[in-house]
Every structure is written in structure tokens, then in C-alpha cells.
């Protein structure tokens, strides 16, 4: 019987029994953790709105063995809010869909429960903070998060030098299987030729050059998003469920003339 305490972001909630939920956290020290929050669905629950997705919390867990993960699901016993990003995200549908894709990505990149993923955790906290602030286009924030998540997990794409032979850029051809742009000699069947502006945008998103990213045109950001989605799907082996709703949200914004 051990008590654990950790900071974490709520990734997902699942209903359990009559009034409980299983909460999936991405924590700073323990990586992905699933815990049971008893009575959280009752209106008078002590947890209130603290255990909603996008919440950044300081939580206490009660586990049966000496470790947080391994012997059944731990209980979430106390929670304090650090930041409630959900209130800044849920008021805008494009932010909400981009945010859920970020949560799903973080969950997919942390396959093993209890395995620390500090960089992924910090990236998610920073990404949600930026998204909730509304400082940048939600789709750009999502693409930046996806590219950097790929990078911290060892799949950083190259947008300058050839991914195969290292020939310095700019290189025109992009091959998902090769790991980024490739030169004319290394070009493989199935390579695409994105515009130079789209490649510049993706490089800017990967390095955090928001001035360049914010100045990009809609058609280039759309092309860039397609490349990021294809690259992510290649490495995750199957697509993200929530990503298709992000695309729909962008389309609806365009149709609504926003």
C-alpha cells in the first residue's frame, strides 16, 4: 500500500460502473498512468471539473503494491489544479479538435504505462498552453506538436539536408519512408514534390520559428498538414482517430468564411 504523487495532464476519461471513471494521465515522473477516480461523475464529487481532459493537475495516487503501475489500477485519491487548459480550448471548435489530436498523439507515443516520458510530457504541457492562449492557428500548433513529438521519439524528419546521403539543402523531394527530403539522386518512387514554402513552414514548426509559421499562406499550411499526417501515420503504423475531425474543422471554418 503506497501513496504516489505526481504532476500530470489528463489525456482521456472512460466511464466505469455507476459513478466512477478511469482517468488516463501523462505524468512527469511515471509516464502514462491509468487510475480510478471514485464518484467523479457525481455532481457533488470532490474532484469537480479537475479530472477533465486537458487539465494539468497535481495528483495523489494510492497503489496496492510498491509501484504505481503493475498490480491493478491505482486509485486517484486527491487532485489539485495546476492549470485548466480545457476552458480556453473548448470554447473554440478548431482548438478542441486540434487539442484532442494532441492528447491522442501523446497517448500513442507513450505505449508502456509507468515508463517516464518527460520530454513528451513537457511538450504536451507547452502545446496545450499555446493552444489555449489562442496565439496561433490551432492547426499550426497541432502540426508543430506532431513534428516535435516525432522528433522526441526519434523520428525527426529532415526538411533541409537529404535524409539519405546528407546533401545540404534545399532539396525538393519528400519521401515519408526515407525520413524527410531527399536529393534527386536518392529520390525513391512515391516521393512527392511539395512547394518550397510548405517545406520552409514545416522546418519553422519543427524549430519553433513562429514568425515564419504565422506568415504562411493557407494553401501551404494545408499542404504541410497533409505531409505531417502522412509522416505520423507511417511511424505510428495506423492513423489517429481524431485527426480526420481536425481536417473537417478546418474545412468548416473555410466554408463559414472565417
Amino acid at each position: 500500500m503506497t501513496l504516489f504523487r505526481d504532476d500530470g495532464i489528463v489525456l482521456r476519461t472512460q466511464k466505469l460502473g455507476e459513478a466512477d471513471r478511469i482517468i488516463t494521465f501523462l505524468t512527469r515522473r511515471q509516464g502514462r498512468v491509468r487510475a480510478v477516480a471514485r464518484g467523479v461523475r457525481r455532481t457533488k464529487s470532490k474532484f469537480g471539473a479537475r479530472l477533465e481532459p486537458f487539465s494539468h493537475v497535481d495528483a495523489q495516487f494510492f497503489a496496492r503494491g510498491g509501484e504505481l503501475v503493475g498490480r491493478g489500477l491505482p486509485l486517484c485519491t486527491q487532485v489539485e489544479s495546476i492549470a485548466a487548459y480545457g476552458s480556453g480550448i473548448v470554447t473554440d471548435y478548431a482548438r478542441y479538435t486540434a487539442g484532442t489530436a494532441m492528447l491522442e498523439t501523446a497517448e500513442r507515443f507513450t505505449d508502456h504505462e509507468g515508463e517516464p516520458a518527460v520530454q513528451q510530457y513537457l511538450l504536451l504541457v507547452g502545446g496545450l498552453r499555446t493552444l489555449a492562449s489562442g496565439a496561433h492557428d490551432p492547426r499550426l500548433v497541432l502540426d508543430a506538436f506532431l513534428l516535435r513529438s516525432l522528433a522526441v521519439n526519434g523520428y525527426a524528419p529532415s526538411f533541409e539536408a537529404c535524409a539519405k546521403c546528407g546533401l545540404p539543402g534545399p532539396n525538393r523531394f519528400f519521401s515519408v519512408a526515407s525520413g524527410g527530403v531527399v536529393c534527386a539522386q536518392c529520390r525513391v518512387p512515391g516521393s512527392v514534390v511539395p512547394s518550397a514554402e510548405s517545406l520552409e513552414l514545416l522546418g519553422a514548426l519543427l524549430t519553433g520559428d513562429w514568425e515564419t509559421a504565422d506568415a504562411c499562406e493557407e494553401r501551404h499550411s494545408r499542404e504541410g498538414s497533409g505531409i505531417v499526417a502522412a509522416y505520423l501515420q507511417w511511424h505510428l503504423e495506423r492513423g489517429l482517430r481524431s485527426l480526420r475531425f481536425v481536417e473537417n474543422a478546418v474545412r468548416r471554418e473555410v466554408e463559414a468564411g472565417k
Partner: protein
Amino acid sequence: MYEGVVQDLIDELGRLPGVGPKSAQRIAFHILQADPTDVRRLAHALTEVKEKVRFCAVCGNVAQSEQCRVCQDPRRDLAVICVVEEPKDVVAIERTREFRGRYHVLGGAISPIEGVGPDDLRIRELLARLADGTVTELILATDPNLEGEATATYLARMVKPMGLKVTRLASGLPVGGDLEYADEVTLGRAFEGRRLLDV
């Protein structure tokens, strides 16, 4: 493992939500020992519910005919529609005896992470109901959680061009609780929705 029909019954009961193998076994033996009339009544209720109950053609609530009891009631206010996620939310609101309008059951909430988008809900049917101009107020009573809020935000934006009065159920402190235990989001909402005390 039990023999034949007893094991079949345990297996079928074990497929119900929240019923584990032990509970299924306990219920099965309760049924075995129960009065045959009671068991026949239970079996009859189970078959009846599948045969007779359908979804209301207007609002999507559970009904025993083409339209549900609320949609058939001529005393209901046609100008107000309350949007809820599930049929059980209709029952919860009806218990208050405060609302005299009609309902629209969406069949869930937008949850991209679960693969549920706007096209999977009865939003198109709602917009069709609003198109004839009879409705003047839309009350968004989706659950006060993240998915419910996102669904309400989405609906509010969709119906905005129609010029309707769109309202959201108030959220804040539960009656009978202590203020010190309220979380920041709930307390913030309570401040946003504070009202003038007319004494």
C-alpha cells in the same frame, strides 16, 4: 463450468454492462430459484422492450409509437427545444417539472478521441426542425463536461445564423456543498453566472 442452458444463461448475463462472471452466476441461480411467474414476466419484459420500443421520429427519444409522449403532447411549447445527449437526460429534466417545451436527443456528444464527430450525432435532424421558424429558443443541456461543452459550442455556432435565442444550462456550485471544496473551473463558472439578489 456448468452444463448446457445454465452456462448459456451465465454467459448471456455476463455480457451485460457492469455484470462480471461472479455476478452473472449469482443472478443465474437467483433466476433458477425464482417463481416461474416472475421469470416469465422478466422474459416477457425483455422481448417486449425490443419489439415495441423505438426512437421518436421527431426528437430521437425512446417511444412506443411513431412519436414519443412529449412530442405528442399538445400542451407542450413548440417554440422552445431543449437539446440533450441521451434519452435518460430527458427523464432527468422531466423530473424537475420546470420545462414545458420539447426535446431533441443528439445520441451522444462530439468526442474526436472516441471517433465521434458531428456527423455521427442527430445534428442534421435538429437543423431541419429549426428551419421552419417555429422555434425561437434553443436550450443546450448537454453534459457539463468537456465533450458536452464542445458539443454546445459547436451547436451554438451552427445555429447562430438562424437568429435564434440560444441558451446554455447554468453551471456552478452544487446546492448543499461546501465552497472550499469547489474546484477552480466550477467556482469560476459560478462567478460568471452569479445573479442579482432581489430582496
